[in-house]
């Protein structure tokens, strides 16, 4: 390419990227800005981009005067438990699909993927009744058990493709040395598949952390709310305090951003590997 054309191409690329950055960056920036403004400044007819009088009052209210930490604790508990269960089930399912020969193998693989065909809304009525009759209504475990649904299909198929990439000769060598198959799975396969395991874990945790539908239906008492349901409840009050809402939005997003800064690259790579395969 000639020089001017190359320059023009770069200008076009950066112009498009700027538009994207504004569309995607502004909402978050605006929430951050709002969360630090005083009420009059927030509702002023000529809004300011950067707060003139910084205030941390909204954060103070959210952190010390609300149930935010109760919601946070519940969300962390549900997310962690759902992630662990999803990982255990996906490792077993992925290994079976990749390395074992058994009757009904194809049906098993199709069946797991078919879970995605029954999105939450179709299952809420019966699940509500099942959990109620099992005595799990308004118990965090009802949500944990259903949240496995959000990531098990993705997890099993992603790990299956990661198991596929480990050379069979490694397993054979370990078995000649006398290791059992379960031990090879634990000591040979899993350490080699850390990126895959991390991808599945993040996917499962974020899916659970973000879910709104199951907690709203299966939990009722304020002490059992997760973050999404808890903060959605604040906004249905007759007057919304946008300062507090912005502060809680920022507080909810910060862990995701921090997590993403550390592991985002691996996560995107892992998801991409799954997408290319499937």
């Amino acid at each position, binding site marked *: 390419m000639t020089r001017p054309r190359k320059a023009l191409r770069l200008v076009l690329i950066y112009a498009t990227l700027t538009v994207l950055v504004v569309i995607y960056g502004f909402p978050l920036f605006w929430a951050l800005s709002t969360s630090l403004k005083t009420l009059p400044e927030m509702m002023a007819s000529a809004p300011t981009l950067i707060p003139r009088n910084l205030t941390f009052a909204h954060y103070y209210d959210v952190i010390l005067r609300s149930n935010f930490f109760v919601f946070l604790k519940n969300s962390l508990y549900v997310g962690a438990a759902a992630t662990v269960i999803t990982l255990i089930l996906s490792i077993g399912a992925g290994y079976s699909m990749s390395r*074992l020969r058994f009757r009904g193998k194809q049906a098993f693989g*199709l069946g797991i993927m078919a879970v995605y*065909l029954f999105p939450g809304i179709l299952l809420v009525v019966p699940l509500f009744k099942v959990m109620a009759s099992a005595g799990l209504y308004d118990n965090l475990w009802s949500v944990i058990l259903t949240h496995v649904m959000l990531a098990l299909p993705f997890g099993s198929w992603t790990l299956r493709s990661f198991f596929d990439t480990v050379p069979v000769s490694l397993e054979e060598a370990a078995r000649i040395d006398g290791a059992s198959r379960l031990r090879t799975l634990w000591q040979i396969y899993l350490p080699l598949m850390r990126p895959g395991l991390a991808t599945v874990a993040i996917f499962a945790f974020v899916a659970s952390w973000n879910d709104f539908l199951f907690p709203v239906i299966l939990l009722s008492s304020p002490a059992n709310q997760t973050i999404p349901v808890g903060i959605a409840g604040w906004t249905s009050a007759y007057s919304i305090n946008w300062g507090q809402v912005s502060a809680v939005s920022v507080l909810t997003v910060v862990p995701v951003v921090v997590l993403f800064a550390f592991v985002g690259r691996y996560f995107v790579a892992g998801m991409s590997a799954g997408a290319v395969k499937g």
Partner: protein
Amino acid sequence: MRRISRWLERDSFLATILAGPSVIWMALIVAYPVLLVFWFSVQDQATFTSTGFVGLKNYLFVLKRADFWMSAVRTVAWTAMNIVLIVPIGVLVALLLNSDFPGKRLFRAWMLLPWMFPIVVTVLLWQWILNPVAGALNYLLHALNVIDSPLSFFQDGTSAMLVVVFVNAWRWTPFMAVVALAVLQTIPPEYYEAARIDGANGYQVSRHITLPLIWPALGNTVFILLIWLFNMFPPLWLMTKGGPVDSTTTLSLLIYKRGFEQFRMGEASAISVLLLVLFVVPMALIYFKRMRSMTKE
């Protein structure tokens, strides 16, 4: 003891203990509830615990009413509008990020972030921007002399629907872009070089090389996205509660309203079954056909 360890070396036994738990979980949390929803749909809806068989009464009741058909139409419209925004824009963003420019790594790394925000937060961020009293968008439109008086985006049915579609597309386009970019990167660079030597321009390369190559791999993702969109509940519920006057009530919101606002579980179950039979089953058949070719080794 030795017997157990010998058993543990067998494929079928290992599969039982490794894949078995997933089967049990699927049976309890997915298969059993799906069967139950059929059962509830022929039960008396007025009672909560003690139910009586009422045959197809719930179905007739649902099918007779216009709100079911209106919701079905809205569901199709909602899905179509979302797909039309998410897929092309996602692919275009992926094409952009697949090209070579300083800073591309940074963009590729952070692209997925908006998709990972809780939907509740995404909705709140936009509701604040779109707020009719002190919202940033109204201020901007007013300052640019586009409007005289502030707009209430959620007061009119059509604009409410369009706004929710926009916010949902905002959330899902990055996901589409990440998948499309991953697929794009599997195309061998030789293809592009060959095309360039033959004198193809950028548009021709995209149209005749890139798109035909990425489409088959994108098909699966678009397919799953289609199913998710068709049954999507949170963005619509959180932004509009299905209003104003039902104008954003899709079938999933109808199920929720019947079941958990009016406690007419029988009717809600009947709608779920209709959704299952009319949409999910046909999609499942296509899906299994696609998947079967993949699971064969």
